């Protein structure tokens, strides 16, 4: 138990430039805190997030990966997040199939006005990943023979 409590997960958050990155900025300017272990990468649209990036994060030691984009229907690029939704649905389900706990992956739609939601989502996500502990599975998917 002691160990789990001390564990601080490393979280990679991909935020689209138009809604969610602005939402994160609003969370900041409203001083709505969320854990420091969430680090944001800015992308033009959630649809720029290649599943490879998510895999790379896990393989490099991230404990959770979250994508944030405009609400479906509000995409700055009209349809980008609809593709995100399908790609990530399939990717998350697949990672779960490979044995990666489903709580480690998430997509949230956060608009530029939803600073509070951004902060809530991050707090919640960090709490869930913290409870799971360290992710090693995608680092050890293949065990080399001795």
């Amino acid at each position, binding site marked *: 138990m002691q160990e789990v409590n001390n564990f601080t997960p490393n979280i990679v958050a991909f935020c689209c430039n138009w809604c969610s990155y602005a939402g994160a900025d609003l969370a900041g*300017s409203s001083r709505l805190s969320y854990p420091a272990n969430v680090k944001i*990468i800015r992308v033009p649209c959630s649809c720029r997030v290649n599943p490879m990036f998510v895999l790379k994060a896990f393989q490099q030691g991230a404990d959770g990966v979250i994508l944030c984009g405009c609400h479906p229907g*509000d995409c*700055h690029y009209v349809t980008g997040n609809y593709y995100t939704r399908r790609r990530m649905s399939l990717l998350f389900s697949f990672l779960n199939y490979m044995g990666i706990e489903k709580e480690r992956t998430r997509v949230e739609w956060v608009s530029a006005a939803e600073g509070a939601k951004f902060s809530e989502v991050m707090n919640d996500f960090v709490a869930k990943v913290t409870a799971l502990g360290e992710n090693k599975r995608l680092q050890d998917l293949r065990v080399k023979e001795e």
Partner: protein
Amino acid sequence: MQKIGVFICWCGSNIAATVDVVRVAEEIKREPGVVYSADYQYMCSENGQQLIKNAIKEYGLTGIVIGSCSPRMHEATFRKAAESVGLNPYMVEVANLREQVSWIHKDKEEATEKALILVRTAIAKVRLNAPLKEGESPVVKRALVIGGGIAGIQAALDIAEAGYPVDIVEKNATIGGRMAQLDKTFPTLDCSACILTPKMVDCAQNEKIDILSYSEIEEVKGYVGNFSVKIRKKARYVDETKCTGCKICMTKCPSKKGLDEFNMNLKTRTAIHIPFAQAIPNVAVIDPEQCLKLKTGKCGICQKFCGAGAIDYTMKDSFIERQYGAIVVATGFKPIDLTAFNEYGYADNKDVVTSLELERLMNAAGPTNGVLLRPSDMTHPKVITFIQCVGSRDVSGCGKPYCSKICCMYTAKHAMLIREKYPDTEVHVFYIDVRTPGKNYDEFYRRAVEQYNVDYIKGMVGKVYNENGKLMVQGSDLLNNEQIVIPSDLVVLATAIEPEPSVRKIATLLTASIDTNNFLNESHPKLRPVESPTAGVYLAGVCQGPKDIPETVSQASACAAKVIGLLAKDKLKTNPCVASSNEMMCNGCSQCANVCAYGAITYVDKEFRLGGGKTEIRRVASVNPAVCQGCGACTVTCPSGAMDLSGFSSKQIMSEVEAICKK
């Protein structure tokens, strides 16, 4: 080898109170590639910018990272500063140390650690940045307006007023659209023709405006600033340049049984005709389905009588191709088909009419010369019942799920006009809700109830059946919890409106996005309501959503302002952060084009050298940088990784991920 400079901003105490900025600047010096690192109170200030500029010059920096507020705040400032001393503006990256660090964290140690990671991440990215150059594309200073109704007319007049040439392409033989068919307009009750026809004449007389009537869009190529449009001029069998509009042909034509579309088929017309008296252009057209000469080869009377020699039975469709900088879509609407609503008896009873038909029955230029007579026996109807929401708000599959927006107001208008002109008439209106948001709108409706004694019944009609010469309107009165039957002489259906069906083809040609109801999508429902997501395409009137005349005119003028703003530029700067395909790796599989919302990707067969003097032709994707908006959807879809996005390349993002995850 890159030479990177790092500049950590205190933002007064905004960052410095929580982040040990001095330590960050110090530690970052040890990062590979970093040759300069400094901290300063306000990097965005004149002095701060000077510090950056000096360092760039002094150390020959090839890339810089600013640790400051959100890039949404000052990225542009720092880019400009860099550019002013010769560093490509896209070699600047910002680490967000304020909104993402100091403002949300309290623990200084923790915040400083995170700041370091964010700065390292930005360094990792900037190492892979490449200088980018904004592209330029020329602007053709001419606009195209598709649709010659009030929306198209207003947009064209405003654009022409600013000095730019405009073409109006109208599929019918005259401009004027639906508004020309209306009798009076709400909420002022002024005559529709009186306010519309002067504008039509203005269009005709404005030398900047070219009206291409009886024409349709055939093909669209190009992109914002530079569209190339092929227009089909349908054969009207009358030479526009010769016809004087004398109408002698109409008096002589023996084929008189054609249905008069302008009068909602309530009247007949001759095969050669001018749609209505004030038509623009005032030129006849021959209906080839009806003309005896064209169908049987026998007749030719109009040609004989035409003093101007304008009739040409051998005329064929012709095509013209023109260039435009911007396109306004203003294709308008039509009432829906009522086949699925026969509980109201529309198919079997001439005296069950749509509201648009009633407009013609009340119009001085209409089939009854403005005297309200019912179509079946040309008598005065004494009891008139209006039914609202016919086909609107209907999710059963027979109608339209949306509110048609204009029906409540025009029904109040009709009721009032009838009570005004024929006080002995009894008028009932079945309604579900009366929706009157708009200046002086509710007041207008209340006048109908309070001043004109129109009987508004909250309820809906279940069936209209005729019995002994009366139309029995059986409906509910929800406030009294009763079922009532009103024996009526005329029943008017406030029929739902839908976008003119041809808009779907036009949307496809323009790659403009369209919703399931055939309304064109705006780029942003609140903030970009007149722009289509396709750059250079603007939306006016009902093609974008149900709206009345005042709203349509406002939107048309807004479109014009946007078009004028675009045409005023000589060149368009294009965002350099766009996708591009590496031809050496592209499979030509079309996956990327499938997800491009802008139609920016096309395919070309290109010849490649294989070595040994051999060549091979391969199909490869080609991105038009002027059209690409840089979302990156294509990059993920591309199986081979040939497609990449400048400024947000796969390698850059991967290295950011690595920098964040590094423990």
